[in-house]
């Protein structure tokens, strides 16, 4: 490799890094003042789903593996976190970490089975195994069955920071989610992440280069499950309960839809999709069942016409609009 190309590569890397930090700085400022403008429970819910979708995107966007069973990790961790905080007296951050680790362990079990197949089979295997987790959540004694696991207290974070009110809790949740999304960004742009992208682009070549593809897929799956678990654990702190809806298969569809709408394989796309979808569900809640229909309809339009999502399509749209305007001006 010549020196020049090496330089241009590091320049590109530097540019990407500046862009990421600039975007995150803007995002962080927005996030800090957001509770002044919007309802904080809505914001926390959107943050949890932003992480849920981002962790799903690690698999789908960068590795091309469509998991249709991520609700198992989100919901499984929700139960684990709730149980650890309520019955074992864990502090919130340890509870969330415990939830993430339980989800990671579940991810290992599911991943070992699922990575044996790709494409559509992968989706169906994860879907079926998540149903198995749903069954367990419904039957096991400590989940509370139909009622769910309720009355999870909001203990002081780290043992001394009071997060009892929604206003205070928001900043705690923001810290957890921002840290996790940053970690995901690091993973994607690490040598490990590059191997994932290589596997996505050309699996036989990655194998012939000596990479143990199956192992990489399993590790990515475990990481994705772990961060989905963090999202599920954070959600328990917000609503103070874990319920069957968290592990239900329709919840597995949420990150899929959010990621596709926002733009798969982009850093911030899944978060944008998550905010959009959560806003739809939150502010149109009085429409009841119609929300599901509108949501499903919008998703179909994205699959049919806007497959690259908001972030993917936006540059093209802007270019087209600009061309339209310059033409008018010339005339």
């Amino acid at each position: 490799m010549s020196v020049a190309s090496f330089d241009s590569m590091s320049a590109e890397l530097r540019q990407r890094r500046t862009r990421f930090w600039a975007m995150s700085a803007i995002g962080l400022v927005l996030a800090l003042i957001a509770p002044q403008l919007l309802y904080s429970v809505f914001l926390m819910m959107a943050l949890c789903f932003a992480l849920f979708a981002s962790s799903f995107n690690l698999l789908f966007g960068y590795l091309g593996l469509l998991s249709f069973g991520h609700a198992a990790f989100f919901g499984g961790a929700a139960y684990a976190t709730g149980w650890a905080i309520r019955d074992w007296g864990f502090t919130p951050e340890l509870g969330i970490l415990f939830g993430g680790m339980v989800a990671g362990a579940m991810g290992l079990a599911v991943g070992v089975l699922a990575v044996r197949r790709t494409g559509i089979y992968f989706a169906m295997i994860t879907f079926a195994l998540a149903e198995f987790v749903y069954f367990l959540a419904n039957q096991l004694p400590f989940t509370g069955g139909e009622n769910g696991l309720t009355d999870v207290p909001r203990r002081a974070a780290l043992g001394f920071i009071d997060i009892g009110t929604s206003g205070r809790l928001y900043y705690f949740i923001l810290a957890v989610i921002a840290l996790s999304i940053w970690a995901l960004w690091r993973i994607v742009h690490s040598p490990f992440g590059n191997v994932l992208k290589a596997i996505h682009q050309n699996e036989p070549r990655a194998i012939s280069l000596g990479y143990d593809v199956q192992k990489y897929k399993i590790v990515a799956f475990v990481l994705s499950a772990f961060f989905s678990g963090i999202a599920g654990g954070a959600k328990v702190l917000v609503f103070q309960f874990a319920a069957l809806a968290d592990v239900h298969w329709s919840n597995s569809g949420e990150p899929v839809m959010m990621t596709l709408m926002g733009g798969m394989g982009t850093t911030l796309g899944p978060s944008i999709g998550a905010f959009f979808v959560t806003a739809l569900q939150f502010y149109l809640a009085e429409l009841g069942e119609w929300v599901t229909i509108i949501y499903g309809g919008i998703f179909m339009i994205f699959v049919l016409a806007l497959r690259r999502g908001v972030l993917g399509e936006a540059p093209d749209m802007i270019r087209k609009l600009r061309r339209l305007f310059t033409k008018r001006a010339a005339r």
Partner: protein
Amino acid sequence: MDWNLTWEAVAQAIMLGLMNGAFYALLSLGLSITFGILDIVNFAHGAMYMMGAFVGWMLLSYFGIGFWPALILAPLAIGLFGILIERTMLVRLYGLHHIYGLLLTFGMARVIEGLFRIRFSVSGQRYPVPDLLKGGLDLGFIYMPIYRVWVIVASLAICFGIWFAINGTRLGSYLRASIENASLVRAFGINVPRLVTLTFGLGAGLAGLTGVLAAPIFSVSPLMGSSIIVVVFAVVVIGGLGSIMGSILGGFALGIVEALTQAFYSQASHVGIFIAMGIVLLIKQGGLSGSTARVT
């Protein structure tokens, strides 16, 4: 857990399993044919099954049209609906990764289910057993309702009819050839796009037919599709997607596995199926039928 089962209870469970298996076989058969030709896993297959049941129910309660005409009319309606979906939407996804077909039909399933929930709420509607199939057979050790026997027989007849249509007729040979090499078949002057459309219609119609068959047994509810599609996915993974024989055998076998699990440990009905799926995946990667997407 109950290990002291009588032989009667086991026989009863096997008969129940055969009946459930009849539905699983029909549904996974439709799913498999669609996948074999279109390379699309139809997530809305369960929704189409539910629509079939509702069309049957509506024909009876709004127009007084009974079970036997509904067995023809409902599949036709759902088949036409399928053709419409294929022509307007799925056609835009050909050539893309088959994940997009799954995603589109997933959104569609939610829309369809949502619409039916608004119109009919989640409570089930009852559909009477047709007069001809009322009553039951007392075989001495077990009692069999005639309708259940009819379901098993009808399912077997339809499955083997379709197996024969694909393996024994000229149209079937075109179909199999287009799976192997669509462009070559087109070069021979066969209208492959029309064949694809008709296949999707056939798969949808099959789901509708299964819905009508299921109406007198299960209550007709907007949720019936999404609850059965989970098991059907497991059947399809075990039987091998795109394999007709795999779907039929897998459907019946899993029905029996499920019913036996249920007899021994009543809360765990679905667990047996997923354990079976896990074992098959660990031992044999391509599903029981071996090769990947092939209609054989």
